């Protein structure tokens, strides 16, 4: 059995139209992977930056997986939400990135996108907020049913992930 440690943090997000953002995140793996310790999903605090346009979360991630196979390598998926002063939450972007497969420190920038509705929905969204959301979050990290979606690009989420592998070389895996 080989083991993988993911130790790092979701640093923050930039390039979104407004600050006061939080992020819901999760890690999805294939059937051969088994989570030994750590939380595989979570939600960051809401940050309203004082001076910069980058929202900082510094949300720690510490996961310990054991695996029998290489398929289904962990994928980190995110949803960036905006919380206004009244406490209403509005979706600002979906994004995902694969957890790096080589050991060491990695600085990742995860791009995000938002579903675009019809022009009537876009007009309403300009005044009232809200907007279309995905019914099932798997579309964020699978490519299966995307051909019907029309999306617009949003900001980027920055992550710092450190990867430690154990016993992968014993099984002949080069990374």
């Amino acid at each position: 059995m080989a083991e993988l440690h993911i130790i790092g943090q979701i640093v923050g997000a930039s390039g979104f139209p407004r600050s006061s953002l939080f992020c819901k995140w999760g890690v999805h793996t294939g059937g051969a992977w088994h989570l030994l310790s750590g939380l595989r999903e979570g939600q960051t605090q809401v940050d309203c930056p004082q001076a910069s346009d980058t929202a900082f979360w510094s949300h720690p991630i510490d996961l310990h997986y054991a695996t029998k196979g290489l398929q289904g390598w962990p994928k980190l998926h995110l949803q960036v939400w905006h919380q206004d002063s009244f406490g209403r939450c509005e979706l600002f972007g979906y994004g995902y990135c694969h957890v790096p497969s080589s050991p060491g420190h990695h600085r990742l920038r995860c791009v995000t996108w938002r579903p675009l509705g019809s022009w009537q929905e876009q007009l309403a969204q300009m005044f009232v907020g809200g907007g279309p959301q995905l019914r099932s979050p798997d579309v964020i990290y699978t490519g299966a049913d995307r051909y019907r979606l029309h999306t617009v690009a949003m900001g980027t989420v920055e992550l710092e992930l450190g990867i430690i592998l154990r016993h992968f070389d014993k099984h002949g895996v080069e990374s």
Partner: protein
Amino acid sequence: YAMATNNPSVFLVMINGQIEGANFPEYDDLYCKYCFVYGNDWAPTSGLEEGISQIACRGQGTQPALVWNFPLEITFKSTNPFGWPQIAVSVYGPDTFGNDVVRGYGAVHVPLTPGKHVRTVPMFVPESTSRLQKFTSWLMGRRPEFTDPKVVAQGEGREVTRVRSQGTVTISFNIVTKDMKKLGYDATPSEALSAAEARTPSLAHPL
């Protein structure tokens, strides 16, 4: 420590570094407290787990920096990378009435790989829940604070907190690890590994 161990059961992580200083554009006369937060499989074997720095003022000049130059020296032993140590830093300073208030909390994992690393840690403060509370706390000098500074190193329970990020702290680390490879852990990036092998091709690798 005995430098030669044939069948180690623990690995060691030695951390030398310093909290260099901070960048808080709006505040001055700041001091910081640090403490290391780690999982159940980790234990410090030498060095200091926590400390309080001096009170520092910004320097003169075009790029005034706030400097602490505060040393960090600690060694951990562990059986498992899960729970890798984080350093949790809190920065305090005086408000207009002279009370000590918190100016920022932040945390970062100690780097995983041997070598020199610099980390810039963003600092945030909890937001007041209402404008009235904000005004009263400004008047009374009692800002919203975390009861335990270690909370900032945890991921659970953050869903309901609103914070404001307002500064950064710069920390530099020099990391040495012992016996991580012997226990089967690979944390070294591949370019560094192939460069080292190219430099010393005659080393025999006992497996």
